[in-house]
């Protein structure tokens, strides 16, 4: 490249900055945020006491989380004590340190230190095929936290090619509130952990990889699910959050599919195609906390 041309580009770029109108808009935006924070601080206490009548599905999940909270004290303390990854500055001796995933807390510890996640984790899969014929696969995975008292929860994929999708449950949106949704992102932040929704890890599978694995991808859906699970293997998710005392800490988890995940998905597909009552079956994924 011509050194002269690049040098002049650098000089011009360094002279660029936001206009005075842009700076004013920034200050106005910050003032709006401060005003909104002052209003919501008084509203939040009321919402927390009375709440909103949840759907049956939400009640079930909260019951699971409440039960898991007790188990989590024993499980998490046993699994992660002394190996806590988080960069927390502890303000107190909390039994559960930092943003712990509910699925991790509900899992079963294995001999190798990993946790076998609940059977529902990664069971629901949907996908679509793009114009380039590649498959965009979305594996629904519950990434909610055990504790509902965290705010500024940032999820980041720090290893792997997967992306996040989060769709807030419409029933959890207050009147005039804004629905929170993220798609195809490597990181996203929820303002507090009471926000309920559907999480998924998304991967893209080229058409030729699916063709190599099966003759009829429209019928052998479990093959696509298994390929997606293999692409998610080794994905590391960092979760950073701030507790009620203002302390920020984090955990990083690595996800791995079980060894015979293709067979497990095939069983689920056979079940779905038959008249049998749907049962979750065996777990599909393991998780470990990593440094």
């Amino acid at each position, binding site marked *: 490249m011509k050194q002269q041309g690049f040098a002049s*580009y650098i000089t011009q770029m360094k002279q660029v900055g936001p206009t005075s109108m*842009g700076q004013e808009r920034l200050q106005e935006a910050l003032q709006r945020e*401060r005003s909104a924070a002052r*209003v919501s601080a008084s509203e939040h206490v009321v919402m927390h006491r009375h709440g909103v009548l949840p759907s049956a599905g939400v009640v079930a999940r909260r019951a699971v989380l409440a039960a898991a909270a007790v188990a989590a004290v024993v499980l998490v303390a046993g699994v992660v004590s002394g190996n806590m990854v988080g960069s927390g500055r502890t303000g107190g001796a909390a039994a559960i340190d930092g943003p712990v995933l509910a699925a991790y807390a509900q899992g079963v510890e294995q001999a190798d230190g990993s946790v076998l996640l609940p059977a529902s984790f990664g069971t629901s899969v949907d996908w679509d095929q793009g114009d380039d014929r590649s498959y965009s696969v979305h594996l629904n995975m519950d990434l909610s936290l055990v504790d509902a008292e965290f705010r500024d929860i940032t999820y980041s994929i720090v290893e792997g090619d997967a992306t996040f999708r989060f769709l807030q449950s419409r029933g959890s949106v207050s009147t005039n509130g804004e629905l929170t949704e993220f*798609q195809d992102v490597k990181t996203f932040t929820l303002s507090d952990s009471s926000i309920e929704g559907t999480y998924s890890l998304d991967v893209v599978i080229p058409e030729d990889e699916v063709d190599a694995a099966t003759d009829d991808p429209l019928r052998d859906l479990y093959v696509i699910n298994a390929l997606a699970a293999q692409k998610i293997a080794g994905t590391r998710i960092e979760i950073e959050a701030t507790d009620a005392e203002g302390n920020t800490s984090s955990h990083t988890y690595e996800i791995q599919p079980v060894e015979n995940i293709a067979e497990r998905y095939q069983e689920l597909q056979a079940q779905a195609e038959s008249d049998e009552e749907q049962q979750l079956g065996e777990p599909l994924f393991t998780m470990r906390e990593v440094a």
Partner: protein
Amino acid sequence: MRESNNELRSEEFMDEAIAAHQGAVYRLALSQTRSTADAQDVMQDVFIKLMRSQVPFRDSDHLRAWLLRVTINQCRDLARQAWHRRVEVVDEPDMGSTVTQDEAVELLMEHPVWRAMDALKESDRSVLHLRYVEELSIPEIAEALSCTQVAVRVRLRRARTRLRQMMVAQCEQQSADVPSFSQQTGVIR
């Protein structure tokens, strides 16, 4: 969504941070989004995140690295959420006249290097921008991009090569567009 409490960063802190870093944030956002309007939106989002964040910054360099990393993530999210932004645009209150491109930006967007960088991946543009415009060191770029120093060196080398290729292709295209003397004087039957 709204904060659960009002513990936001002080106005004094925000004023200092904006004075020190808004230029870098805006330039990086402009380099990534290729749009002054989007760069303005990203800059707003970044400083709102800063105001709401509780990260204890060691020093100004740490703050700058955090801001640049958040800026890159915001740009990436913006590009992948075009449908979401269309909904937000409809719902936004009228803020009067929009940000207009000033002459400096207009000149910049006519520069051949700017046009060549249009064809680069966002990851290539970001390392080139941080290295040559913001003059960050390799370790500083690694911190801003949350990657290893080795990865930064590899990406810089690749980005420079690709930009060079784009510039050459641009020059060749410009030459091809101008008819040669023989073509101009040829007789068409």
